[in-house]
């Protein structure tokens, strides 16, 4: 068991595993999204206060969850890279950051489009929206830091330190924004009544799984690209069929 994990943690052995997993997660994401959208648009009833526009939550809430979840996962892999110097962990953290930033962007975009008809404004200083914006800055900071550092190993470790500091800070940031928000009686949106329709909840959960599967597929695909970039002069990379095909072609 332990030996297997050790073997898997080398980029060379994980590369084909990731390649085999990607189609399953991609197909899974597509099927789950189809079910989720059917639940969200076909089954769930119209909200009698907000009308149809609440249907944005089927992408807003999952992307917001994923944006936070992915940050924690990224920090986890970063910590492993920092603690044990495992190369694959650093690559994993590197692969997660752009998808996490995109999820944060989707959450902000959809939140603002939901807010316009609901609050009458695209942007409200709501605690969750504000925290999400700061989360986007944190993601962009990590991506920018990696861009600025040329050396991949230094980048792995520096980004790990930054993401760990970020993980400690995110709850504090959220709490502080909420604190500030209550003091100033800011806006906040809730669905009608305390109990959400079961079909709405089901749709949201299924869509969350769809986003989750999609993120895994996207991260693994990016991971494969990163492995190729960083192990470019390893013998096993030279032997890969896709690399040989690229060598045969022009350029």
């Amino acid at each position: 068991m332990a030996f297997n994990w050790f073997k898997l943690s080398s980029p060379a052995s994980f590369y084909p595993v990731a390649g085999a997993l990607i189609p399953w997660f991609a197909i899974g994401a597509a099927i789950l999204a189809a079910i989720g959208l059917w639940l969200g648009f076909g089954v769930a009833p119209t909200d009698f206060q907000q009308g149809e526009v609440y249907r944005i939550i089927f992408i807003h809430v999952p992307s917001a969850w994923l944006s936070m979840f992915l940050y924690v996962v990224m920090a986890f892999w970063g910590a492993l890279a920092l603690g044990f110097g495992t190369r694959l962990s650093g690559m994993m953290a590197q692969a997660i950051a752009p998808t996490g930033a995109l999820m944060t962007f989707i959450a902000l975009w959809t939140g603002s489009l939901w807010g316009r008809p609901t609050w009458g404004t695209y942007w409200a200083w709501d605690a969750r929206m504000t925290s999400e914006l700061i989360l986007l800055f944190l993601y962009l900071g990590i991506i920018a830091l990696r861009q600025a550092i040329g050396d991949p190993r230094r980048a792995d470790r520096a980004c790990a330190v930054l993401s760990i500091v970020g993980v400690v800070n995110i709850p504090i940031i959220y709490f502080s924004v909420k604190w500030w928000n209550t003091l100033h009686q800011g806006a906040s949106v809730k669905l009608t009544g305390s109990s959400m329709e079961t079909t709405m909840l089901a749709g949201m959960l299924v869509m969350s799984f769809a986003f989750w599967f999609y993120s895994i597929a996207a991260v693994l695909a990016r991971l494969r690209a990163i492995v190729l970039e960083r192990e470019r002069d390893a013998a096993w990379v030279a032997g890969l069929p896709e690399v040989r095909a690229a060598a045969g072609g022009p350029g």
Partner: protein
Amino acid sequence: MGGEALPTVAAATHATGDGAIAGVRWALARDLKLAFRSRAELGVQLLFYVIVVTLFPLATTPERNLLSTMGPGVLWVAALLASLLSLPRLFATDHADGTLEQIALSPYALEALVSGKILAHWLTTGLPVVLLAPLLGQQYYMEGESLTVLTTGLLIGTPILSLLGAIGAALTLGLRGGGGLLALLILPLYVPVLIFGAGAVDAVRAGLGATANLSLLGAGLALAVVGAPFAAAAAVRIALD
């Protein structure tokens, strides 16, 4: 000179025993001396703070009520920017002239040396900002308890800025676009400090009292004092690698 015995490892590591305090003291004394020798530079940074604070009423309105509402926020944002402006000095010069390598190879714990440097940074850049606050508060028609709470908040909060900033300064050592990158990395982390610090004055005005805000700021300082030197020291080692 020949024939002298080389010190053993044990003799040399003796320094790490009382290392933490001695390390803090070495870095503090040296950075304070260096800051004093280049005090003109510190003056310029302080002036930046004063000018930023002065610009806001000119950009908005000299109206008394509005300014006294904006005042704490403006002073805090200016303090954040002043801290940001001074942060590259913290490690960059040591990095450029090779001192940082010697610091990292010293038998003193790097965390202690880094703490000393952070303390010196706060004493030379953060403390002046705190001391100027009662004066600059006058521009914003702040007085009485508001002014006291603002200054107290800055006194507790500016060390957090130096502590968190040290992590960013160490992470961006020797990188292209260092200043802008540092701002992107560090300003989001400053958000809670800004909220609790500026919020303390609002709470006083709302009649809620500043105790809760200042206590939260104090808790933040405690957390930063414990955690930040380790993160900053780790970042220094990474930057040297």
